[in-house]
C-alpha cells in the first residue's frame, strides 16, 4: 500500500516530483544557512550544553518533515487529479475523482467530475445517435436496394424486353429479400386459361422440377394457392402462422418452411401468384417484407398486362409495314367475312394467291434491300390493279393475295392474269435476267373450292404449288 502510494507520488509525476525535491532542498538549505547565521558558534557550548547542533538539526528536520507533509497534501490530490484526468482522456468516462476537500483542489476535482459526466452523457447521446443513424442507413440501403430492383424490372418493361426475361428477373429479385432461397411464378395460361407453375428460381428449382412441380394442378378457390390467388393481398406463412392441412401440403409441395405469397393482379384481373420461400422455420415476415413482395408482384402484373396489350395490338394491326397492303391475319379474318356475305347474297367470292417466282434466289444474289424494293414495287402493282371492293394483301414473305368479293373464277382469273402480266412487264427491262421477276398465281372460289376461308387458302396453296412446278409465270385455278 505504502509502496503504491510512493510509486504514485514519485514515479507517476516525475516532473512535479523533481520540482518538489528542488523546492524542499532549497528550503532546507535556506533553513540551515539561516540557523548558521543565527548561531555562528554552534560547535561551542551553550547554556552548559556542550553542543546545540543536534538540537538544531532536529528542529530543522522537524520543519522539513512538516513542510514535506504539507507539500504532499497539496501535491497528492493534484497528482491524483492528473492521473484520473489522463485515464478520462483515454476514454474511461466512468471514472470519478474522489476528493473530500473544500479547497481549490476539491473544486478542481468536482469541476473535472462534472465535466466528465457531461462528456459521458454527450458521448452516450452520440452513441445513441450513431446507433439510430446506423439503423436509418440500413433502412435507406434496404430501400435503395428495393428501388433499384424495381427500377431494373421497370427498365426491362420499358425496353419491351421479352416477357420471359422480365419474369425471370422478377423471380430472381425475390431471392435478394427476406432471406428467401426459393421463388416461383404461377401464371394463367392464356390459351387454356388454367393456372400453371410458370418458372422456378433458387436453390431447389432442379429438385422441384424433377418432382413434377410444373404439372401441379391449381384450381381457383381450392388449396392454399387457389385461395391466395383470389385474395389480392400478400399472405405470409412464418413461425407465427397457425398450421393447417393446406399449409402443410403447401410446404411439402414446395419444400419450404416459410413463405410469402403475393397475388399478381392488375385492375381486378388475376394473372397469377408470386411465391418466395425459405427453409428458416423461425422466420418472421415483417411488414417491410410484405411491401417488397407486393411491389415486385405489381411489377410483374404490369409486365404481363403490357404483354397482353402488345398481343392485342398485334392482332389489331391490319397492314404489312413494308408494302402497306393488308397482312395475313387481317386477310384470313376478312376472307371469312366476305364468304359469309357472299353466301347471304348468293354470290361467289374468290381468293387469289400469288408467289414471286425464284424470289429467294433473287434475295440471295441481290441482297435484302433490293428484295425489299422489289416487294414494294410488286405491292404497288397489286394496289393499282384492284377495285375498291377488292382487298390485296402481303400474305407471306414473298406471297401476295387478293380477296375478290362477288367475283367468280372466270372474273378472278382475268384480274390475276392482268397482275401477272404487269409484274412480268415491270421487271422485263432489267438487264440481268435474274432480276426479271415473274409471279405464279392460283384462284380458289367459294363455293366451288370450299365454304370457309381456310378451305380456300388451303386449296389455293395446292394449286399455287402446281403452278410453280410448271415453271411459274402463270395463273391456275
Amino acid at each position, binding site marked *: 500500500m505504502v509502496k503504491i502510494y510512493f510509486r504514485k507520488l514519485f514515479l507517476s509525476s516525475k516532473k512535479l516530483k523533481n520540482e518538489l525535491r528542488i523546492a524542499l532542498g532549497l528550503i532546507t538549505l535556506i533553513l540551515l544557512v539561516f540557523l548558521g547565521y543565527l548561531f555562528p558558534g554552534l560547535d561551542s557550548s551553550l547554556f552548559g550544553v556542550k553542543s546545540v547542533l543536534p538540537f538544531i538539526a532536529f528542529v530543522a528536520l522537524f520543519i522539513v518533515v512538516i513542510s514535506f507533509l504539507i507539500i504532499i497534501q497539496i501535491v497528492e490530490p493534484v497528482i491524483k487529479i492528473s492521473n484520473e484526468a489522463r485515464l478520462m482522456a483515454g476514454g474511461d468516462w466512468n471514472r470519478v475523482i474522489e476528493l473530500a476537500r473544500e479547497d481549490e483542489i476539491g473544486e478542481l476535482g468536482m469541476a473535472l467530475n462534472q465535466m466528465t459526466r457531461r462528456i459521458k452523457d454527450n458521448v452516450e447521446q452520440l452513441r445513441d445517435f450513431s446507433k439510430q443513424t446506423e439503423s436509418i442507413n440500413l433502412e435507406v440501403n434496404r430501400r435503395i436496394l428495393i428501388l433499384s430492383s424495381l427500377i431494373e424490372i421497370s427498365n426491362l418493361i420499358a425496353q419491351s424486353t421479352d416477357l420471359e426475361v422480365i419474369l425471370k428477373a422478377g423471380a430472381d429479385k425475390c431471392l435478394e429479400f427476406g432471406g428467401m432461397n426459393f421463388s416461383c411464378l404461377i401464371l394463367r395460361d392464356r390459351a387454356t386459361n388454367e393456372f400453371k407453375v410458370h418458372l422456378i428460381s433458387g436453390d431447389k428449382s432442379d429438385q422441384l422440377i424433377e418432382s413434377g412441380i410444373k404439372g401441379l394442378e391449381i384450381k381457383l378457390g381450392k388449396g392454399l394457392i387457389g385461395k391466395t390467388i383470389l385474395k389480392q393481398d400478400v399472405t405470409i406463412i412464418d413461425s407465427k402462422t397457425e398450421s393447417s392441412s393446406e399449409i402443410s401440403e403447401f410446404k411439402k409441395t414446395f419444400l419450404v418452411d416459410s413463405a410469402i405469397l403475393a397475388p399478381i393482379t392488375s385492375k381486378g384481373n388475376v394473372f397469377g401468384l408470386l411465391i418466395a420461400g425459405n427453409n428458416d422455420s423461425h422466420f418472421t415476415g415483417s411488414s417491410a417484407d410484405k411491401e417488397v413482395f407486393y411491389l415486385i408482384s405489381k411489377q410483374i402484373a404490369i409486365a404481363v398486362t403490357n404483354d397482353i396489350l402488345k398481343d392485342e395490338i398485334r392482332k389489331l394491326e391490319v397492314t404489312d409495314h413494308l408494302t402497306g397492303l393488308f397482312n395475313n391475319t387481317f386477310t384470313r379474318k376478312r376472307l371469312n367475312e366476305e364468304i359469309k356475305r357472299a353466301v347471304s347474297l348468293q354470290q361467289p367470292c374468290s381468293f387469289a394467291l400469288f408467289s414471286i417466282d425464284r424470289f429467294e434466289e433473287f434475295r440471295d444474289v441481290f441482297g435484302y434491300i433490293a428484295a425489299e424494293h422489289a416487294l414494294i414495287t410488286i405491292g404497288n402493282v397489286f394496289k393499282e390493279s384492284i377495285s375498291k371492293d377488292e382487298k390485296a394483301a402481303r400474305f407471306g414473305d414473298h406471297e401476295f393475295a387478293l380477296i375478290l368479293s362477288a367475283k367468280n373464277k372466270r372474273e378472278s382469273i382475268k384480274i390475276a392474269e392482268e397482275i401477272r402480266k404487269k409484274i412480268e412487264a415491270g421487271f422485263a427491262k432489267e438487264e440481268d435476267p435474274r432480276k426479271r421477276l415473274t409471279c405464279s398465281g392460283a384462284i380458289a372460289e*367459294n363455293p366451288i373450292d370450299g365454304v370457309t376461308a381456310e378451305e380456300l387458302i388451303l386449296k389455293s396453296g395446292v394449286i399455287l404449288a402446281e403452278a410453280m412446278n410448271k415453271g411459274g409465270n402463270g395463273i391456275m385455278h
Partner: protein
Amino acid sequence: MKPYKRATTKHLGELLVERGVIDKEQVSMAVAYQKEKGGLFGEVLVELKFATEEDIAQALTAQYGFPYLPLSSYEIDLKVISAVPEHVCRQFCLIPIDKIGMSLTLAMADPLNVQAVEDVELITSCAVQTFVGTASDIKEAIDKYYKSK
C-alpha cells in the same frame, strides 16, 4: 319443254319494277333489308310481302322466256344431282335437273345470276340451260335429293 339460254344480266328488281309488280321504293327497301339480313333478292321481296314467288317466276318467264318448272312434280335422276356439289347448289339456290350429253339443265331461283351459271359450267364442263323455279321449291328439292344421295 324447251330450255332457253340466258340473254340478260338485268337485275331482278329492275325487271319486277318494269312489270309493275313492285315500285322503286320497294326495291330500295328490299335492297336495304338484304344488306342487313342477307338472302336472295327474290326471297327478300317474298319475305317483305312485296311479291310472291309466283310473281317472280312469272316475271322471269314472261320477260326473258325462262321456262317455269314446278319442281314438286318433277323427279330428278341422282346421277344428275351428283354433277353439282350440294354447297354450290345451296349458295346459288339452284339444282341440276337434267343432263343430256354435255348439256346440263338447271332450275334456278334467279336465272339472271350469270356468275352461278358460269361456275356450274366450269365445274361440269357442260353448257348450261336454265329453268325458273321458286326458291322454296329448290331448297326443298336440295334437301330431298342431296340427303338421299
